[in-house]
């Protein structure tokens, strides 16, 4: 295989890995603060992507034709709207069920995912069909031999990296991050130290959901198309990536996202039939991985208390 094609594959893998990592970080954050899996997370991503699309239409209708303003408006509205949605979910669906069996949280978030997914399908005009996503990023590309680096991909990769670094900074270098980590480590002690538990949970859900919106917008720009089922797919893969890295660890989630994308890319290259069976391959990898290492590459060190 020539270098150009290889570089192209690596680029595709990095883009996919970035999206998976962003989703996986959300799962890990939620699991960290509340020990729950928010199965509607993927569909929150869908809502984010569609909110961005609505914003674009709205900005366009308002007579603003500048691409960069539209882009900025899309990102801001989508991220804040989904952050709010995430907080609502935490406040009214996840927190009230803390005392109930874990199965109920699982079911309620699964059903909420269905509600969000179906709402997009039914109430967005012709929501059942894929929607074209505006190409607002510069489309020109730089040639390196026979690999051409598309500028929009490079920008997205840089922006994604910046977001991840930002979240890392927030969690490890700020007081808020300290509070989130404290709650994740020991809820009761964190409470006695004067940390407002509910507020921290809501903030964690807002951050995670905002990241999902960012990933959704990125997905839209990358594939130039969004549909109501995109979140289900990305959510399952993101959850699997979070497990691969060991739930609860931010670095693990990021690593897991890129690792999963790498596996997927290698699978596409190595197996001749894989391009048609791309999704089948991805989900098969998840199932096989769960059989092999059910608690991730970095094993959980907790033993169960009875």
């Amino acid at each position: 295989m020539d270098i150009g094609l290889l570089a192209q594959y690596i680029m595709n893998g990095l883009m996919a890995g970035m999206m998976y990592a962003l989703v996986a970080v959300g799962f890990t954050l939620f699991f960290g603060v509340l020990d729950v899996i928010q199965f509607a997370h993927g569909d929150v991503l869908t809502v984010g992507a569609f909110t961005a699309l609505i914003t674009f239409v709205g900005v366009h209708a308002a007579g603003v034709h500048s691409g960069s303003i539209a882009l900025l408006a899309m990102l801001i509205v989508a991220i804040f709207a989904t952050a709010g949605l995430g907080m609502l979910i935490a406040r009214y669906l996840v927190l009230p069920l803390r005392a109930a069996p874990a199965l109920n949280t699982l079911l309620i978030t699964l059903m909420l995912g269905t509600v969000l997914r179906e709402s997009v399908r039914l109430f967005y005009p012709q929501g059942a069909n894929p929607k074209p996503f505006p190409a607002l990023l510069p489309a020109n590309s730089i040639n390196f031999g026979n690999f051409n680096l598309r500028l929009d991909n490079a920008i997205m990769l840089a922006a994604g990296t910046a977001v991840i670094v930002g979240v890392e900074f927030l969690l490890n270098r700020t007081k808020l991050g300290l509070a989130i980590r404290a709650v994740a480590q020991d809820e009761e002690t964190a409470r006695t130290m004067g940390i407002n538990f509910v507020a921290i949970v809501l903030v964690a859900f807002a951050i995670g959901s905002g990241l999902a919106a960012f990933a959704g917008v990125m997905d839209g720009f990358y594939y130039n198309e969004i549909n109501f089922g995109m979140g289900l797919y990305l959510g399952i893969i993101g959850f699997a990536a979070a497990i691969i890295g060991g739930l609860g660890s931010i670095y693990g989630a990021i690593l897991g996202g890129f690792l999963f994308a790498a596996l997927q890319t290698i699978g596409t290259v190595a197996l001749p039939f894989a391009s048609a069976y791309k999704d089948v391959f991805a989900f098969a990898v998840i199932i096989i991985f769960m059989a092999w290492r059910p608690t991730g590459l970095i094993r959980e060190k907790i033993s169960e208390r009875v």
Partner: protein
Amino acid sequence: MLPGVIALALASLYLSALLAVEKQPLIIGLLALAVIVALGAYWMGWLASVSRSFADRENVLGTMAIVAAFAMAAYFHDDHFVLLLIVTVLLYTVATLGLNIQFGYSGVLNFAGASFFGIGAYTSAVLNARTTVPTLVVLPIGGIIAALIGSLLLLPVLRTRGHYAALVTIAFALLLKAFLEVNDVLGGPQGLQVKGMTVGGWSFNDSIELGKIELSFYMSYFVLSLALLVAAFILVRRLERSWIGLNLDALRLDETAASCFGLDVARWKITAFTLGNFLIGIAGALFGMVGGFVAPNNYTFADSLILVSILLLGGIGNPWGLAVATVIVIVVPEKLQTIQEYRFLLYAVMVIAVLLFRPEGLLPRPLRSYFPGWRP
């Protein structure tokens, strides 16, 4: 026993009326009436006495339910649509009974119920078209294939718990649909035609004439589906009452404690998962022949969630509740055309409400009664 008989009679009369009515406003009125009556009965404590009489005299009331089903089918003997609806309800109840063994008794999560249902349907499509296997034998084969493919998931399901196991089955549901859509041998997204049932040279898809009365061809499917449901119901009930059911309950309630008392956790999880998939597969195989057509779009993750919704609405672990919930979930959207499109949304919202306000389901599972009629 009297409350049970009255409830059964009223329920069958009401269901017949609902199935017979065509005008949308009347249907809405009937549905509203049902909600009011059910709430009123709950308030007056009548529901409790009904469920007690069902627990005490299950055999008698079960026989009566069979008679009532036959009476309804006889009343609608030439109405294809209504009979198809009844057959659908019967087969979905069989499938949810299978899911009930997994979810309700042993606590093994399965969010790919519709996938195993689809595997059964695809099995009957392929076997009826390509081989000369008698169609009656195809039904258990459909169940066995579903159980076998399900056993591929056993290792990850056994090694994981709760959320992780849910992930495995959801991934499987998505995998299977993606696989069926790209696989040309199995018809791709268009799906396959399924040949109907034939028993002893007599095709189920021919209409039946008894003297001057012409019966819909769905009548024979109705009889077979009802037989299947009765068999599945008895199996599940016996299982629940037996020491196996006790083991499964222990497993669900506390896995660690169960294994401390010497229960082989893996063995009973495998039993429950495989048996459940077997039942779902059989129901799917017959459903494929009834519908005459299978396509990947009929067996999506959303359909699996519908099956789970039935289970939660009916009250996990209560077979009678399942039957009621299946009627609600299957019949209402078919009759009320305006909500047909919104059914996934509607049931998801309903389940969220049930989980928030009445987590044990509409008709919660009663205590196991070893001695009918005995009260401490």
